[in-house]
């Protein structure tokens, strides 16, 4: 006796990313934050096109123009946001500073992510002594703050390469230092996901199919560990930018001739009591907004990628 086999109707639930995207669009704050972030990115990418002056071209800077207030106060239309103590157009400096800060943020986090993901995958998948060693290192490093580690690394690198070399390659060096400083966050998250994923039977199934371990790690496990990383990736960008700003504030970051937002603020702080408020306030506001926006994006991602909100 047999029943007529019917193809059962079932719903195809919307694809994961479509779902996230839809949830994202319905969140007004998220859209706002995202638009501002995109705006920042565009500005950073198109800095040479947008900035009215090239702040690195010292020939364009005239001390005669020093300390002009923003145009709505001074009426000087050449300098929308005014000029700094050197006569550099503040708008241009901020545009380029944003470019520097964002690049350092992105590149350093990319470096953190690549180191962290690789070590985390290896550590989580193979386990054993290597895992213990790597995670001890991660623990120790994580217990010190990124700024502290960066200061130490900075000093070490400066002493190895010499300060002059450091300043010439400050951006790459900072990326390197900040990239090294916080890989454990990625490594630990990846490792935790890998440990969880490794328990899942699809990994065993793949293994039983004879698929090589490298392929299992990268093709099967890695894609499943990605989503928490998006959140960390986003928030880390903010952290790295702040760390770079803090280093610059302490006088250890970008050189004065190629200011990042952090060094602009650091320079500006000397002017805080002097009445030339725009030199510090404007970069501060730009930095804070950037960090705020990235953190908000991190929150949004966290909410939408959370398995609790999105049932598998």
């Amino acid at each position: 006796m047999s029943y007529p086999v019917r193809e059962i109707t079932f719903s195809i639930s919307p694809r994961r990313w479509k779902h996230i995207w839809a949830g994202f669009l319905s969140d007004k704050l998220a859209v706002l934050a995202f638009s501002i972030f995109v705006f920042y990115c565009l500005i950073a990418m198109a800095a040479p096109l947008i900035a009215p002056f090239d702040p690195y071209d010292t020939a364009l800077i005239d001390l005669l123009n020093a300390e002009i207030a923003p145009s709505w106060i001074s009426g000087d239309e050449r300098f929308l946001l005014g000029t700094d103590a050197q006569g550099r157009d503040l708008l241009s400096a901020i545009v380029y500073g944003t470019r520097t800060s964002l690049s350092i943020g992105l590149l350093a986090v990319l470096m953190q992510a690549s180191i962290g993901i690789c070590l985390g995958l290896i550590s989580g998948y193979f386990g054993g002594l290597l895992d213990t060693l790597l995670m001890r290192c991660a623990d120790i490093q994580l217990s010190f703050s990124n700024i502290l580690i960066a200061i130490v690394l900075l000093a070490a690198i400066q002493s190895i390469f010499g300060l002059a070399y450091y300043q010439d390659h400050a951006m790459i060096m900072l990326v390197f230092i900040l990239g090294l400083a916080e890989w454990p966050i990625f490594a630990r998250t990846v490792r935790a996901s890998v440990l969880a994923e490794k328990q899942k039977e699809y990994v065993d199934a793949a293994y039983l199919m004879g698929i090589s371990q490298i392929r299992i790690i990268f093709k099967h496990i890695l894609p499943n560990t990605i989503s928490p990383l998006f959140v960390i990736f986003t928030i880390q960008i903010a952290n790295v930018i702040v760390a770079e700003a803090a280093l610059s504030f302490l006088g250890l970051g970008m050189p004065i001739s190629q200011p990042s937002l952090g060094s602009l603020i650091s320079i500006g702080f000397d002017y805080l009591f002097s009445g030339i408020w725009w030199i510090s306030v404007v970069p501060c506001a730009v930095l804070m907004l950037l960090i705020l926006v990235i953190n908000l994006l991190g929150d949004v991602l966290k909410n939408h990628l959370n398995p609790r909100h999105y049932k598998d």
Partner: protein
Amino acid sequence: MKGLYFVLTLMLATVVSSYTMATHATTINTQTISTKATSAKTIKIALDHDPISLDPHEQLTEKTLQTSHLLFDPLLRWTQDNTLEARLATHWRNLDAHTTRFFLRDNVTFHSGNPLTVDDVVFTIERLKKSPDFKALFDNILTVKKVDRLTFDIVTKKPTPLLLNLMTYVFPMDHQFYQDKDRVLKFGKSFASYNVSGTGPFIVTKREQGKQIDFIRNPNYWDTSSKGNIGRIELTPIKSNSTRLAALLSDDVDFIHPVAPLDTKRLENTANIDLITLLSSRVLLLQLNQTKRAEFQDIRVRKAINLAINQQLIVDKVLKGLSKAAGQLSHEQFMGHVEELQPLYNLDQARQLMQEAGYASGFRVSMITSYGINAQVAQAIESMLAKINIQIDLKAVPAAQYLRAIDERSTDLLLMSWLSDTQDSNNLFEFLIACTDEKTGFGAFNTHGYCNPAIDNMINAANEELDQTKRRDLLQTIEKQLAADAVFVPIAWLHLSWAAKRHINLHTIVNNQNLYYLGDTVVSD
């Protein structure tokens, strides 16, 4: 389990506290003397840093000298209008070209109660000759001869026109107090760096390095004519300009130094706060390293750089008009000052000179500066030189590395400032202009590699020339020659700035060598 936590906590507490105690023991605790004066005032001072030692011979810096003026008295001292004033030496006379006789003040006692005698002065000058920092200055003094209890002769190797200037550095130390414990130690703890017995108006009661020094007035101070009414001083180092200013604005301190040029405008408009700025003889100059860069060997290039830099603009914009644009090294109060040498600025001519020299399209050079206001001046120079196509890779570095760069002559352009130790032009020439000589220390800061034997000879001659007119001629000739050769770019004579609550009467106590005699300060109610 809980017991364990207790033990752990206790262990931590013990470790920490034992060290706290240990450091306490090391803070100075001379006998506490109550102040007699009923009208005694307490003032709080915030400086950018505190003296590294209480030993007046350990380091030749403004901070040490300032402290020495509180704890000791010199034989002579500079007044506000840059003349010399007798202190522990009442008078003096030249016996011959090599010998000068000094007469000491009687009835002066040290903090320890010992009376001041010539033995103390002999001890002190001998010690100065051993100090690494002061050695070079006192090298010329052959011996100090004791004549009687209060009279002594100073014999020099060569005629020394600036002997009196030197005597401002002699702060007689209590030789009985320091006997056998008089080592000058740069690293490590010496007796003298923590224990003081001077003749000065103040006594240290508490010292936590990097945090605070407290002074109280010496009740047995010899100078009874002094109207000074400060009973107690609390001196705190505050490094950050903004925090220091905030401390003054929030009434936490009465007196700060320095004030960043930027903040002067704000203070001018603040009620109850006096801002004093004085032009000092500290000169800021840009050295062009001829050894390292062939381009700088061409006088046209050096001249062009001189012409391209607008000193007056730097002074107006960066230094807020408080400093003075310089066209030479010697400050106007110095003997070597040449009135005609004014800063030059002519961009067109500069460009033309560059073209003549074959560098119309310019070149790239490196430049090092220390942090702070120098870095801002450097940036201004950077953009000025960019206009004659000289591109600068500017680096601002911390002091320690800055000094290393000087020692190694590792940079093409160097921005540095120099204060004459003797209030005389020749000190500038000796260190900045003379050919580098490891042995004598001459040219130690000559990073431009300019070496002119003729000028060296003139420097040596001036050192021995007692005739003021001839000496003036010598010094002015050097200054003119340097200007003609465009060896370096003088930028400005920098200013000093203080801010204080009005009742401190700040204007009465500061001088342009950054010295203030708080012992004589009268604070109003």
